């Protein structure tokens, strides 16, 4: 048995060599930082380093739990993720169905191409555009509001607007791209089903409701499960870029808090403890998600 493993290693040595740099990359940039979480159990000091900083056990975890900010930050993160999930998830499905039902091919191609475009913008460009468009003095949106006879709104300084802006811009950026997977599913629907539906006297709307939508239910279920981990895992960039002192009450989420406390404030141990708690919950969610998708769909992430 042993010999056969040696034999196989020998036979695969070129492949193993080809893999080596990538495995090293994962070690250096993914696994070593995982061990870096030990700093959450010490009073880490940048100058003393990991080897000489004192161990303090769960101090930073207790600190986070007893901090009144903690509840606010967790709540902001979950609410933002949940609203995003509720509003942004159905958008690409609806748009994909509209594309699918569009009979004027050239127009359909055009709208499709245009709708993918925002996906490729950077978070900095997207945030900059929003800040400009929403500006109370010079932004086009407030200009439009004023021309309708209303007072301009200082959108980005008001906590009650942050989630709306964040999610609306997410929908704008991601919806077109998100249609691709559903369009693939739609393309696989058997045309005979439509034939049969027409025989039964179904009009276009009824065909859509009874044939098109049921046809992509499996894809919807898989995508649904896959987006669940996004409720906790909210990217750092955009929230950081459009967050400010004015909208902090809703814009401060776990990742921006970690950046502020850890990198700007130097509270590295404390910030790591927060990040780790988040990471563990996310991992659990991803794991459950995958287990569920394995059961529901034929496919899973691994």
């Amino acid at each position, binding site marked *: 048995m042993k010999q056969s493993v040696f034999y196989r290693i020998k036979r695969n040595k070129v492949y193993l060599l080809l893999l080596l740099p990538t495995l090293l990359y994962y070690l250096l940039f993914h696994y070593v930082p995982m061990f870096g979480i030990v700093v959450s159990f010490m009073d880490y000091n940048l100058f003393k380093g990991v080897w000489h900083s004192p161990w303090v056990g769960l101090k930073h975890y207790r600190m986070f739990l007893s901090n009144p900010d903690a509840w606010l930050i967790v709540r902001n993160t979950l609410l933002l993720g949940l609203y995003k999930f509720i509003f942004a998830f159905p958008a690409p499905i609806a748009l994909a169905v509209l594309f699918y039902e569009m009979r004027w091919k050239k127009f359909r191609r055009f709208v499709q*191409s245009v709708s993918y475009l925002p996906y490729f913008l950077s978070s900095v460009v997207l945030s900059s555009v929003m800040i*400009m468009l929403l500006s109370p003095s010079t932004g086009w949106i407030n200009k439009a509001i004023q021309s309708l006879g209303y007072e301009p709104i200082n959108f980005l300084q008001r906590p009650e607007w942050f989630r709306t802006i964040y999610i609306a811009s997410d929908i704008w950026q991601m919806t077109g791209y998100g249609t691709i997977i559903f369009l693939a599913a739609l393309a696989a629907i058997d045309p005979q089903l439509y034939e049969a539906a027409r025989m039964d006297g179904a009009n276009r709307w009824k065909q859509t409701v009874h044939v098109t939508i049921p046809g992509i239910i499996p894809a919807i279920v898989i995508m649904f499960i896959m987006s669940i981990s996004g409720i906790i895992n909210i990217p750092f960039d955009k929230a950081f870029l459009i967050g400010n002192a004015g909208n902090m009450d809703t814009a401060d989420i776990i990742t921006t808090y970690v950046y502020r406390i850890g990198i700007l404030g130097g509270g590295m141990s404390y910030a790591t403890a927060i990040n780790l708690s988040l990471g563990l919950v996310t991992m659990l969610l991803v794991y459950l998600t995958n287990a569920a998708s394995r059961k529901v769909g034929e496919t899973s992430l691994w």
Partner: protein
Amino acid sequence: MVRTGKIGVFDVVNFLLLLFVAIAMLFPFLHMASVAISSPEYVVRNEISFFPKGLQFNALQAVFEDKRLWIGYRNSIGYVVLGLFISMALTITSAYALSRRGLVFYKPIMLYIVFTMMFHGGMIPFYLVARSYGLIDTIWAMVLPNAVVTVWLIIMRTFFSGMPVEVEESGRIDGLSDFTVLTHIVMPLSKPVLLTIGMFYTVAIWNDFQSALLLIREPNLFPLQLVIRNLVVVGQAGDVLEATTKDGHKVILESLKYGIILLGCLPVLIIYPFIQKHFEQGAMIGSVKG
């Protein structure tokens, strides 16, 4: 679709909805461009929405005269070129190795790679580790930490394993080694997936803001995204970017900022038409299959 029939209310509503989508997607770009090339008096009076008024290019000229933007541009291009090379080299070689049937230790290696999708140390340990490797204020900070994206690696592996065995066998009969099978047979046959993944890496490196924010302090190494953020989001566009150009034209700050943003997404706007048909295909390959 194959479905026939008269054009009804359904089609009209659909057309209008999609028209709205198209306008909503394009409006910010059109508005940005229009403000950037309109004359100040119209910008001040907020009369620009879709189309420019009183065409003039002073704001763009002022943008082009700002050194910081060019440093950002040069740096970003450099990061993309180097990063793309490293990322593609790592992804192609490892995806190829992983796609070989009967690879020894296949399962543990995949687990080792995929586990990183589930769990990571977080921002602070990452920062500390990158710092201890001496990445701060170096080119490597922008190309090494995200050199391999696991999902794209898996997409490529899936594509490579779908290749018929006969094709490679014919190469082996001609005396090719493992490595030359990859470079002479597998890669030329995988152009769509290589293009797609290459494009995804390009866009990811070009758009990367977080690595720069964490690891780059030296203004001479700032990628374009960081420059744009400092000029537009933090709003210090005033100091070097004077409100007047060299030849004494007055420029509105708003036009200036839109000009800067526009410059930031210009490369994407330019290459987008060429890559669009490839990425659709590529995104589909990778979307569900694992």
